[in-house]
């Protein structure tokens, strides 16, 4: 199995963004998705850094893909998305709108925020030129198996959400702005304060979600380490690791070691928890009753 | 919503007092005859309950000194009257007027819940199934009782009309259900 690094979901300072992608060049991953997924207002702050990052990662032998926004409504966003096709990299569509701008027959990837739930949709996308699909994180193993099989028949690689806070919802409303009682148009980039999202707890203090501008994520970090064998058997060809502000290079190396069989899943999980005692893991979407469930031992809180 | 009136009528005190003293058994017998008729006349209502047809519902009219344990038993319903709570899967509590008004389409169940006139406990999905099944059946409890009353039908009709007028409780269905 391969490793894909997903687009950064959060709003990072330009220096942090550049540093993160520079470091990735030396990390054992196969593919990197670049660009803005969540909010078009963030892009101007770092878009000039993208060409350098692309060149550097390609030079390091990585495949580089550019993502579309997850929710395209404004005229400016439509224009931005239409221009993606001409940037010289493969496009990962995360809103079907992006598909409408791609030249007929162009190869493209499909990100985790496009609803690919069944063979019919997979086949339709394959007809359009899809060659790689990262499945929606909420899909259970039975669906992953069926789709990996259908993908194999069409030459479409199937990728699964491997690690990181789960993208649970996207909205027209910005929750960071709402937190500060600011209109979205004058958000003052409040989301920049939370490089891994703003934690959301219930009234009883249970950790639950994380807010990231117009996006809502899980509190728990999805972790497919303990599911690798099942996913491999299902025919999944890559795991997607979602960028986080701390310890990401080590995390990638850990997953690589698990895939290569030089490290056990339990050892990786133990390392992850040791590096952040506050970390909560989940793999329930793949193989549990609820998304938040975790198949491993829960550390005492 | 306007379905929730400012004030849901509270059942007058005297029937409650009478119930406190009266033996429940004859009433329970009558109620069982009544729900047996409902099961015959409205088989679809029980089908709508699906898996929830095997659950036990406690209906608690809070202005009466009794609770009703309703077991749909997948179309062979049974009703038990009791003075105190019985083992159940789900409980629905509210003024009798709210409960009857909901059955007769006078009130919207969600609105009664939002306004806290209705209290739901236990198996929420079962309560929802029961509410939806009853709503879909468009029951008219008074009409069903009248049908059971045989020769006494006219008298029962008059009693129902009088009771409705005196209490403000929707004992019968006022929207005409048939005209399609």
């Amino acid at each position, binding site marked *: 199995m391969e490793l894909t690094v997903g687009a950064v979901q959060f709003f990072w300072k330009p220096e942090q963004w550049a540093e993160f992608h520079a470091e990735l060049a030396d990390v054992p991953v196969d593919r990197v998705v670049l660009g803005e997924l969540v909010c078009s207002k963030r892009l101007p702050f770092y878009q000039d850094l993208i060409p350098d990052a692309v060149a550097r990662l390609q030079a390091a032998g990585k495949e580089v893909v550019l993502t579309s926004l997850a929710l395209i409504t404004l005229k400016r966003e439509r224009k931005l998305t239409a221009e993606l096709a001409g940037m010289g990299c493969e496009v990962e569509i995360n809103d079907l709108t992006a598909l409408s701008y791609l030249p007929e027959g162009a190869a493209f990837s499909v990100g985790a925020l496009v609803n690919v739930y*069944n063979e019919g949709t997979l086949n339709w996308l394959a007809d359009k030129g899809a060659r790689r699909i990262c499945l929606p994180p909420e899909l259970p193993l039975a669906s992953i198996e069926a789709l990996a099989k259908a993908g194999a028949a069409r030459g479409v690689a199937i990728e699964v959400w491997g690690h990181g806070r789960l993208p649970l919802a996207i909205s027209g409303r910005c929750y960071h702005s709402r937190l500060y009682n600011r209109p979205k148009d004058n958000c003052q980039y409040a989301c920049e304060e939370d490089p891994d999202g703003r934690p959301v707890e219930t009234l009883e203090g249970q950790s639950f979600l994380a807010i990231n501008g117009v996006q809502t994520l899980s509190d728990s970090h999805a972790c497919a380490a303990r599911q690798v064998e099942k996913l491999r058997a299902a025919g999944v060809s890559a795991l997607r690791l979602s960028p986080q502000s701390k310890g990401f290079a080590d995390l990638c190396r850990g997953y690589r070691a698990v895939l290569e069989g030089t490290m056990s899943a339990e050892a990786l999980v133990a390392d992850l928890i040791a590096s952040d005692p506050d970390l909560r893991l989940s793999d329930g979407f793949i193989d549990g009753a609820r998304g938040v469930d975790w198949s491993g031992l829960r550390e005492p809180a | 919503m306007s379905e929730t009136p400012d004030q849901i009528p509270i059942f007058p005190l005297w029937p409650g007092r009478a119930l406190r003293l009266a033996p429940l058994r004859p009433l329970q017998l009558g109620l069982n005859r009544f729900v047996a008729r409902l099961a015959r006349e409205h088989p679809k209502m029980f089908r709508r309950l699906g898996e929830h047809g095997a659950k036990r519902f406690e209906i608690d009219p809070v202005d009466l000194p009794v609770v009703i344990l309703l077991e749909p038993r997948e179309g062979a319903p049974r009703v038990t009257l009791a003075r105190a709570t019985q083992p159940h899967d789900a409980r629905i509590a509210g003024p009798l007027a709210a409960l009857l008004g909901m059955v007769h389409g006078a009130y919207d169940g969600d609105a009664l819940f939002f306004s806290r006139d209705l209290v739901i406990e236990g198996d929420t999905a079962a309560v929802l199934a029961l509410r*939806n099944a009853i709503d879909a059946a468009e029951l008219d409890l008074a009409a069903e009782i009248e049908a059971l009353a045989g020769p006494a039908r006219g008298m029962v009709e008059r009693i129902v009309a009088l009771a409705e007028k005196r209490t403000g409780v929707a004992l019968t269905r006022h929207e005409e259900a048939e005209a399609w």
Partner: protein
Amino acid sequence: MEIVCPAGTPAALRAAVKAGAHTVYCGFADETNARNFPGLNFERDEMRESIARAHEHGAKVLIAINTYPRAGAEALWHRAVADAAGCGADAIILADPGLLAFAAREFPDLRRHLSVQAAAANADIINFYAAEFGVKRVVLPRVLSVPEIAAINAETDVETEVFVFGGLCVMAEGRCSLSSYATGKSPNMNGVCSPASHVEYREEAGRLDARLGGYTIHRVGAGEPAPYPTLCKGCFTAGDKTGHLFEDPVSLNAEALMPALQKAGVTALKIEGRQRSVSYVSQVVRNFRAAVDALEAGLPMPEGMLARLSEGQAGTTGAYKKTWR
């Protein structure tokens, strides 16, 4: 403008038609539609009979088959499309591209509407759906403002339908897994959001706690209105702020915006609430039919109607006003 009204049961469908619905939408009693609630929806014979009756009264019936078919089990959704055609539906409301492709191929004469669950939020994607699958109408997601709706209508020939009343999704529809994260059941896969089967109410000394999948979503004091524990309308804490971080427990009421929506070129106004009672359907439909009739006749909107409909329930105009964002 056409009003498109909800029906969770044959009784509600009849009530909607009697109350003046031009069009009613409903679904089969299974996971093929996004209101797959216990005790709700239509068996095949009920659907056939209800559609025939609605047609006699000059009303149209749309069938929502708007969940995302499960991999390995698409036949269930394909059968729903075939049965919708067989029952005489005036259109089907679909969200999944694979299912749209199937319907366009196998039942080209059955009119196709794009469900709100597809969250098609701009003219380009709407025109793309029309070109790919022959979609004739799109139900717009609840993330757009009125000027944005007008702009979309200026750029497409596809009819637009917008929600004017009822429950409000805060997230882009069909793109939210909050429910399955907490309960394992999702709108996309199971046709339920924050399902009753995972709701637990606890009332103590007048204080009502509502939990969903073990998470406390609401806590209301004695006498305060009790909202349904929908995840995105829950009360949470982020840092030092506690409140309804995503959305207040309100429901949409865009009645006052009807003239603006008409000017924006909207074809149909949709009322949410297939899970609500016959009583609710009758009242809301009657009110909206009166409003739309007044609007078409150039008369002032009926007095006091807004207040009556919103009583006891907080209303919002949602994303139709840009400040909502």
